[in-house]
């Protein structure tokens, strides 16, 4: 078997997003869906319900009232946010392990994924976008390709690193050149296999190439910018570091100034303790 085919074959070894996660995403992507539909999907799964309530009651949301039911959670946090939290509470498995090729210790990829999803959600709320939970989920799962590619990056690290250091390639272009496929493309293949909405597949595929987004699209730029912010503050930056392309025109499309950038960084870090709590709760510790 060709190497690329073998890599793609490994998608089958990942643990797919749960049935409930998929249903919830479907419900929120349909503008006509209702609160009751969402509650009905979740409430029969006791484990999921307990986990979701723990997450809703974490200090990150700072709710004064203790949330005791899914219905209450939707009332206080909204449909979109609860949907995002369902995916958050059921996606950690694939991300928890160390990824040696990217020099990420145990838990670091998950921490990175949750952080960039929270920042993307924050930016999407500021821009008043629809589909916020889909943006959150795409940002959360965008690096799923790294989980498979890590072993190959490790084997070929010297060649990848040389291409980056000596020829100024981005890390992702070097992955593609040396291995034959990059982590974003591989992630998009995973998303397709798991029957994700094409909107999410596009975000995952282009999260390092926002210039490929349609000219009026803001969701890919938002996920891209959230990822760039994480790199700058050192979250999830491993052996690939910050060796990705910066697209000022894409950031400009969001009407995002350098002060906005710094304020987003400061505000995210200001609540890092509650973010860490959310990260730990969501991975089931």
């Amino acid at each position: 078997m060709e190497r690329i085919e073998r890599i793609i074959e490994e998608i089958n070894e990942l643990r797919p997003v749960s049935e409930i996660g998929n249903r919830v995403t479907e419900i929120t992507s349909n503008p006509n869906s209702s609160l009751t539909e969402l509650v009905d999907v979740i409430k029969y799964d006791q484990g999921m319900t307990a986990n979701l309530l723990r997450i809703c009651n974490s200090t990150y949301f700072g709710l004064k009232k203790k949330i005791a039911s899914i219905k209450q959670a939707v009332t206080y946090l909204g449909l979109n946010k609860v949907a995002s939290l369902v995916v958050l509470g059921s996606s950690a498995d694939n991300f928890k392990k160390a990824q040696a090729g990217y020099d990420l210790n145990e838990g670091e990829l998950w921490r990175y994924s949750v952080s960039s999803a929270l920042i993307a959600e924050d930016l999407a709320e500021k821009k008043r976008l629809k589909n916020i939970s889909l943006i959150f989920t795409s940002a959360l799962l965008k690096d799923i390709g790294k989980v498979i590619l890590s072993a190959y990056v490790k084997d070929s690290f010297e060649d990848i690193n040389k291409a980056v250091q000596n020829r100024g390639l981005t890390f992702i272009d070097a992955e593609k050149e040396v291995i034959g496929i990059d982590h974003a493309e591989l992630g998009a293949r995973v998303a397709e296999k798991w029957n994700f909405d094409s909107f999410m597949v596009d975000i995952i595929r282009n999260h390092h190439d926002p210039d490929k987004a349609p000219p009026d699209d803001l969701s890919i730029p938002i996920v891209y910018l959230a990822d760039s912010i994480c790199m700058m503050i050192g979250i999830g930056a491993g052996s690939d570091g910050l060796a990705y392309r910066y697209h000022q025109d894409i950031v400009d499309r969001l009407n995002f100034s350098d002060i906005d950038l710094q304020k987003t960084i400061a505000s995210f870090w200001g609540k890092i303790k509650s973010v860490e709590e959310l990260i730990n709760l969501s991975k089931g510790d």
Partner: protein
Amino acid sequence: MINIIVGVADMKVSDDRGAILITHSLGSCIGVAIYDPVAKAGGLLHYMLPESSLDGIKAKKNPYMFGDTGIPLLFKEAYKLGVKKNRLQVIVVGGAQILDQKGLFNIGKRNYTLLRKMFWKNNVMTDFEDIGGNTNRTLKLEIESGQAWLKTGGMGVKKIWKE
């Protein structure tokens, strides 16, 4: 040996001979280590953003988030341990950028520019610098010896030369 972790937007000083100060994940942030070989004491700062005028409330709550409030405090706290300015060894690393990141959005460069201005104004010389590029860095300082190590993403660990 005890590893004392200096988090992001954090600072620690120590004169504990058994301590190693260590800070991870320096992307666009800057790590500043200072050490006095006579007092055998030093400190390590990891700041994220250049100027505290961005958000006075946050700066008051955590002055180590910003260079202009964090750097003076690093020196002040180290002086309390008997550190003298004229004996200081100073290491500055970090300030990385995403490829093609320019102008005002280049936080790594702005972080470094701020430090250069402050050091120039206060007549502080640096003994070792590793700034910019696109890599992620980790900095370690051993209090007993003043030996420091720099780990650069993808390029392993190197000892930083000291007198």
